């Protein structure tokens, strides 16, 4: 059981969701984050104030999956999020100690397997 974290471009979030759907990965949380991953800073001007903005808007996916689903999930994230330019994002796979489905108190693999599987 792993937690897959994918940090992607906001404009690619829909493509990632589609790719995950095709890979039959159904349980997903997303959040808006700001981050810096080596991409180009942008310079903004507001009247006399010039700033360099190093943080870019990103979308962070958190997906808890059973071991069999780790590779399809990572592949789906890469497929959906890649543009080939600096700033496409990162994927982190973390061991997951415990998972609980609140409704049924199912734990671990049962909890991360979609209902009806």
């Amino acid at each position: 059981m792993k937690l897959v974290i994918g940090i992607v471009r906001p404009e690619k979030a829909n493509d990632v969701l589609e790719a995950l759907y095709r890979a039959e990965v159904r349980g997903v949380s997303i959040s808006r984050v700001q981050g810096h991953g080596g991409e180009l800073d942008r310079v903004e001007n507001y009247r006399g104030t010039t700033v360099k903005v190093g943080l870019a808007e990103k979308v962070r996916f958190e997906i808890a999956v059973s071991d069999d689903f780790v590779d399809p999930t990572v592949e789906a994230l890469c497929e959906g999020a890649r543009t080939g330019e600096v700033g496409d994002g990162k994927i982190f796979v973390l061991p997951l100690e415990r998972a609980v489905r609140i409704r049924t108190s199912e734990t671990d693999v049962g909890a991360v397997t979609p209902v009806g599987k």
Partner: protein
Amino acid sequence: MSFLAAAQVDSGDTAWMLVATALVLMMTPALGLFYAGLVRSKNTLNTFMMCIAAIAIAAVTWAAVGYSLAFDGTGDLVGGLGHAFLNGVTFEPRDGTTIPHLVFFAFQATFCIITVALVSGAVVERMRFDAFMVFAALWSVLVYAVLAHWGFGGGWLMENGTLDFAGGIAVEMGSGFSALAAALVVGARKDYGRQALLPHNAVYVLLGAGLLWFGWFGFNGGSGFSTGDNGVLAFVNTLLTPAATLIVWFVLDLWRGRQVTAIGAATAIIVGCVVITPAGGFISPGWALLLGAIAAIPSYAVIMGRPRTRVDETLDVLGAHGIAGLTGIVAIGLFAQTSWNGVADGALYGDAHQLLWQVIPAIAVPAYAFGATFVLLKAIGAVMPLRASEHQEALGMDTTQHGEEAYASGEGAILVTPEAGIDVELPVAQPQAT
């Protein structure tokens, strides 16, 4: 329109026209707000700035040659250059009015400005800002001034008796059908038809629509160039018609989706104001109410159907302005009443000839607006790129075209000062996408 010969300047009329001119100018930032609310948050400023750029550019081109081509002389297709650079535009009354020629010029300038801004609705979220400014300058002269001459300035439609009180020809059909051509030449946004591209602030949209309606009292009420009967009639009809359009729009929304929508309501206000624009000074308040109700239907159909096509005419200028303007122009030919307007009867009051000369512009004006805009944008596109790159479109037009954000948080922004020794040079080696 009044037909007083060798009139003096009338202080009451002039006072009203000064106010009306200011009201119409306010409509362009109001349109900016309306449009900005309808786009995604990353394109807010770029969308608004197209309207601000329209004020800057169209005011200057109008003073230089646009006004003259529209309002100097009675050439069939286009006016002369006698008033170029405001030559002869003075404190003397404009022929046929009781207001100074300068005020008449300024009032007409605000019409040219908002019409240029209206067309931007077709190309927001992907057209390059520099290309838009070039387009705005040329379009204001080659399309708007020509159509204004046809409808208001003594051109062939006006000479043959076509009635257009406040700009169904130049402003509404002119912008709507040009918008369709612009959308086709510039092309769809990269995610159009693939992702949900939703309005980011419905309150901006409602506030913009409300301010547009407010300004429209100057637009229609001022188009009599006096405080006389036609202007008063148009002013009151500008209250009644959009109200009727709103009610029918509510019913259509309920029928289609079981709920009345806010953005639908904002759209209905625009459609109602547009349809009464050409007809305002010519039809009775009763017909104005009915016209508002009728006008909802074709515009609603176009606005609901358009997103199912491949044509990304993004903010539905065609449905809201082109189609409603056409409805209003034709409606004059049916509902006009001499007892109300002192000028002409429509077919329902015995003059089918008037209807003919309302149907002819409904064909000729869309054809010219569409054709001329299509060719103009193709020509500009041959000289400079019309669209931002896909990469820039993805990042958003605000940061890529203007270097600003509408909703800047300041998080992660490092102040660039000479003392801090922070250089604006970009530190990371990455090919700058073009």
